[in-house]
């Protein structure tokens, strides 16, 4: 029996081809995963930069910067459960009816879905809100959507962290 017709050789040849293909495919998939991870990391950096600009503008009451970052259809739910529009929120910060006595916000977590990013975090800032000072830590969810090449702040909601529910608020204690 010639070597070419030997069934064992044929099987072995197929196995070699299959393993080569598998190696190539897994390498390709691995590279793709790395690319996605790298894209997500770049997105996180972009959003963090926008978030930093926004935080700075909030402390300064810089309406111009806030108007750039806030989406026209922004829905902002504050820690009192009040629903504010972009206009309401910018006015509050611009007029000084919301003032930051101190500013501390972080412990960010990101979930990226293409052009949408979900950012959660903790705020321990002390805020003078229409004459009432709030020192209670808040946990928040912000949603950014990339519109016309820029990350736009489209939704936000903050919730007070109950005294008896410290959760993982280590961030505010450090």
């Amino acid at each position: 029996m010639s070597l070419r017709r030997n069934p064992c050789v044929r099987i072995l040849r197929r196995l070699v081809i299959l393993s080569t293909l598998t190696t190539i495919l897994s390498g390709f998939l691995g590279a793709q995963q790395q690319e996605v991870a790298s894209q997500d990391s770049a997105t996180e950096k972009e959003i963090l930069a926008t978030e930093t600009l926004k935080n700075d503008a909030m402390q300064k009451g810089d309406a111009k910067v806030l108007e750039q970052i806030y989406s026209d259809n922004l829905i902002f739910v504050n820690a009192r459960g009040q629903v504010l529009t972009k206009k309401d929120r910018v006015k509050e910060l611009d007029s000084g009816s919301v003032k930051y006595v101190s500013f501390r916000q972080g412990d960010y977590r990101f979930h990226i879905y293409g052009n949408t990013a979900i950012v959660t975090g903790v705020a321990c800032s002390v805020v003078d809100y229409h004459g009432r000072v709030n020192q209670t830590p808040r946990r928040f969810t912000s949603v950014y959507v990339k519109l016309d090449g820029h990350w736009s702040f489209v939704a936000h909601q903050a919730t007070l962290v109950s005294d008896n529910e410290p959760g993982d608020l280590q961030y505010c204690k450090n």
Partner: protein
Amino acid sequence: MLVGRLLLLTGLIAFACPGIAQAQNDVPSQTSIQQEVLKTEAVRDEAMQKADMTVLNRIYADNVVIVNTRGLSLTKAQRLADFQSGDLKFLSFDQGDYSFQIYGDTVILNGRANSVVQFHGKVNRVPRQFTLTYIKLNGEWKLVAQNETLIDQPQ
């Protein structure tokens, strides 16, 4: 002559592939997206009341982030465990006043809940404002983020 051939080719392709024109018309309108999300939300609401794990498991994205009214951050596994164990129960269900913001396959759904909820033995009757983020993943609307806040009652 080349232009004529190109036009002929274009016509032939359009004739052979009527799905192309159809696909362009199939871009969902804002209204149909709202209806789809509202339907998913109705299914989720019913599943929450019945503690239907199969349905909840399908609608909640694996990486969903939930901030409850106490300011606790919960994962999908934690939320499903709350429903399954009965630690989270609806004594009455009333939710609505919805508003939608649509950005392609991302939908922000705001609303108000007046349901009476028992959470780990503590009954909560205070109305809540919530923000839900739905994203279409592999053709299905998934809940990727949820944040709830008690509405401060005027003194």
